[in-house]
């Protein structure tokens, strides 16, 4: 192996997906790049940028349409099997055999890669130690939590040392704790074993830890270089604004985000962090009016700021389109939209939700955060009347869910984790179906469907088959469907999982707009920065609520001598780990 040559080299690579009766989709439109040996490189970019296609081409699973792609000095078209003999590849959905145990899955891949028994004896303990899967060797892979499945997938990928490791979004749907563990594994592989890794991710903090970044957009390379070089693009454009009132951060963020000269704005620890395009000194823009009288301090740009700056001219140049409801959400005078007291859910002898209590105020955005398997989805399903609680009290929109689940359901909208849409139906057909399911008829039904298509900008896709829509559109359609009957409360279960940063901003802009119009929002997320959009959050683990309050309260509560001003993610990890340590000590 000549290490002076790149591990992967693409030259004006093209790939187009062609389906019968569907327009052809150009996934890669002339990509040229180089990945050097011994580096950790990241592919980043919005949904549909071509990241997965590039990964599959590199794994010799697809044949390039034109251009060349050499992996480990082998051409992918001429020598697919030789490449597959040398690399390891972890697809977005790793192919674990759910009816095999942890050990059987690892043995299968070890045998297929020709790893001898002696090599295995040496390698398995390492992998088990890294992934902490040792206690679960005999458990069926299908019974592992999401994070553990990802770790097992990585362990199976690493049963031998490949010459190149390809990871396609290895941390989608993985909670911050598991994500950190996975990254520690990848990092030690690169630094200690000199492995070459190419991964794709929608988490920018992960990309920042890589040595080389390739930013793809619409099948083209928009930028490549070190993370610092990407960050550089936002230099001198990044500021922090102090809102007038301590709770005004979200409103200010929403206002700023709507301005054409604002590249990005996010709530950040009670302030608003924004990136502003270099302005012309002679004119006063609406942004200047907004910021008048506020304390605005320039700050060092982050990697995310650089990323958003690079993408700004391409993605959604007109800015976001917030949703307007036809009428404000009804208010029956009850202050609490949701009241939960001593809620318990048992599955057999497993307690998924263990005596939790919280209130959600009317018009509030309430975040439910927690690692995989914490009981968030179970809680959600009970709130929506889809699961019967084993005990406790549950009031949603003034009705007792346990007694009259149907009455409660009429007043809430629910967007499930994988967006429950009917794939073969078109966008309009899906909306028509959900409208009928909610009992809408005649002129009102017509008006509501028109509203959904207009407010969620679905007109261009109205006749498209929903299964073939990009992720962002599916999410919009699912939200539109859940809002057809004008519910008072909207439940969203991991709505932004796997979405790119820009799509997440637009999503949250819609959520804040809905909240301003009186809709109560309850949301789960794995992106801890997104907790900053919430009025209040509750952190759950092992079926219990560990902490609740405003994001500022949570951060304050988690501060320690080592980390006096933790960010939301650090605060979250600290709270969960502290609780787990206490449980262990007690046991």
């Amino acid at each position, binding site marked *: 192996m000549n290490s002076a040559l790149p591990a992967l080299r693409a030259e004006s690579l093209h790939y187009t997906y062609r389906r019968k009766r569907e327009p052809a989709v150009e996934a890669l439109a002339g990509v040229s790049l180089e990945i050097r040996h011994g580096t950790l490189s990241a592919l980043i970019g919005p949904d549909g940028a071509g990241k997965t296609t590039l990964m599959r081409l590199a794994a010799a*699973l*697809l044949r390039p349409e034109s251009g060349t792609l050499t992996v480990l000095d082998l051409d992918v078209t001429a020598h697919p099997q030789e490449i*597959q003999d040398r690399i390891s*590849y972890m*697809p977005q959905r790793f*192919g674990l055999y759910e009816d095999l145990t942890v050990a059987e899955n690892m043995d299968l891949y070890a045998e*297929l*890669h*020709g790893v001898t028994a002696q090599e295995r004896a040496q390698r398995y303990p390492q992998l088990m130690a890294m992934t902490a899967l040792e206690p679960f060797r005999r458990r069926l892979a299908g019974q592992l939590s999401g994070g553990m499945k990802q770790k097992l997938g990585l362990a*199976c990928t690493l049963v031998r040392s490949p010459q190149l490791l390809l990871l396609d979004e290895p941390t989608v749907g993985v909670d911050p704790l598991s994500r950190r563990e996975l990254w520690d594994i990848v990092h030690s592989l690169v630094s200690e074993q000199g492995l070459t890794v190419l991964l794709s991710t929608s988490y920018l903090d992960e990309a920042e830890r890589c040595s080389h970044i390739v930013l793809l957009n619409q099948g083209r390379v928009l930028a490549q270089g070190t993370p610092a070089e990407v960050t550089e693009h936002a230099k001198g454009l990044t500021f922090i604004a102090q809102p007038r009132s301590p709770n005004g951060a979200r409103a200010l963020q929403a206002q700023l985000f709507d301005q054409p000269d604002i590249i990005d704005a996010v709530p950040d620890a009670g302030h608003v962090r924004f990136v502003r395009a270099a302005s012309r000194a002679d004119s006063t823009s609406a942004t200047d009016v907004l910021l008048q009288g506020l304390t605005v301090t320039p700050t060092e740009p982050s990697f995310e700021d650089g990323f958003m700056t690079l993408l700004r001219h391409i993605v959604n140049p007109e800015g976001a389109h917030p949703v307007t409801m036809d009428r404000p959400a009804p208010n029956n005078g009850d202050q609490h939209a949701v009241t939960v007291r001593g809620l318990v859910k048992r599955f057999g002898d497993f307690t998924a939700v263990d005596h939790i209590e919280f209130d959600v105020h009317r018009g509030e955005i309430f975040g439910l955060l927690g690692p995989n398997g914490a009981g968030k989805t179970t809680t959600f399903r009970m709130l929506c009347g889809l699961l019967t609680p084993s005990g406790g009290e549950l009031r949603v929109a003034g009705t007792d869910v346990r007694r009259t689940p149907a009455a409660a359901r009429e007043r809430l909208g629910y967007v499930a984790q994988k967006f429950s849409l009917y794939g073969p139906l078109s966008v309009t057909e899906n909306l028509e179906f959900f409208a009928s399911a909610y009992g809408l008829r005649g002129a009102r039904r017509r008006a509501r469907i028109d509203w959904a298509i207009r407010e969620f900008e679905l007109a261009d896709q109205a006749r498209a088959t929903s299964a073939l829509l990009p992720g962002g559109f599916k999410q919009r359609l699912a939200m539109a469907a859940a809002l057809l009957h004008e519910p008072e409360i909207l439940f969203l279960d991991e709505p932004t999982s796997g979405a790119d940063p820009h799509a997440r901003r637009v999503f949250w802009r819609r959520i804040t707009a809905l909240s301003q119009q009186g809709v109560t929002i309850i949301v789960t997320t794995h992106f801890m920065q997104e907790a900053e959009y919430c009025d209040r959050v509750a952190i759950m683990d092992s079926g219990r609520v560990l902490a609740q309050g405003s994001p500022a309260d949570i951060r304050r509560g988690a501060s320690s001598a080592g980390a006096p001003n933790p960010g939301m993610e650090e605060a979250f990890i600290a709270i969960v780990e502290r609780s787990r340590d206490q449980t262990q000590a007690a046991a």
Partner: protein
Amino acid sequence: MKEHTSADAWPAKLRRIRALVRKETLQVLRDPSSIAIGIVLPLILILLFGYGLSLDVKHVPIALVMDDNSADASALAGVFELSPYFRPQRLPTLAAAQTLLLQQKIDGIVRLQSDFSQRLNDGHAEVQLIVHGADANRARIIQGYVTGAVGIWSAQRQAQGQTPDIAPVTLQTRVWFNEANDSSYFLVPGLIVLVMTLIGGLLTSMVMAREWERGTLETLLVTPVRGDEILLGKTLPYFLLGMIGLAVCVLAAEFLFHVPLRGSLWILLGASMLYVLVALGIGLLISSWVKNQLVASQLTMLVTFMPAFMLSGFLFDLRSVPLFVRLITYLLPARYYVALLQSVFLAGNVWAVILPNTLVLALMAAGLGLTSRAVMNKRLQ
């Protein structure tokens, strides 16, 4: 390129196949649905077909309309009344009998006209038979029974020395191979075809599509594993399961239904192996194309199970179907397997049947194997 030198390649190849076979076997053992299709379903089908479904016609309700009250006529009526195949009732007029026939309360009318005994003495007596023709097959069987009953009666008369020279409607009918006229004789061999089709076609079509659906194949492809190894890894466990299903069926045929096995067990085994390979090939091919469990299983049902049921000659005699349909049956592997099974079980080692049918199955198996190999190209698109 080390793995391509033939000295090294074999052990690695065998190890990979072994790993895939072990994985597949574990999955079969842990998945209740494959056990259900592989072992429970054959058992249910055997009991259902063996005991529940019978094509035998017994206790046929008929009407006897006796316009003649002579001793000869009463003797003939007695034959019908004593036969286990008929449940006759005497009716005074033809009109009354016709009403019952139209209501399907009876399946046929046997009528002796008033001049019966007179014409009998003249040597040209007639027995009138009217059969409900809605079920043509059943009508034909009843027709045969009546002919048989009349034959018995005239034989009795001959034995008694009365009128040795007359024969009203005597047909020489004999039932070959199925002397007992017991339908389980040909239903149970037919059942083996169904079970082999289910295990071979349906199970494999679903397991391959399942790998696509769950995304396991994408991971499997990016390993040193070769396309033919994936195919072999899928084929071997289900081939074995098919053989277990075969054993269950053959044992049931022998000990539960006492169907004779007149030919060689080895020929039965060989023919079944070929047929399972053909069914496996079809299943694998379908699921590599459609990549969706539901569609794959429905398509397999449509192209293998349903034709095996309707057009293989196991339920309906292929000689009596229209030419166009008969031409289609030549494309169906089940047709050749049914011919082989019926020969081996009921007739013995008839080489003129065994050789051509075996040859066709072998060619089909080889063709499907090669096509599956060509389709399995380790690419996603």
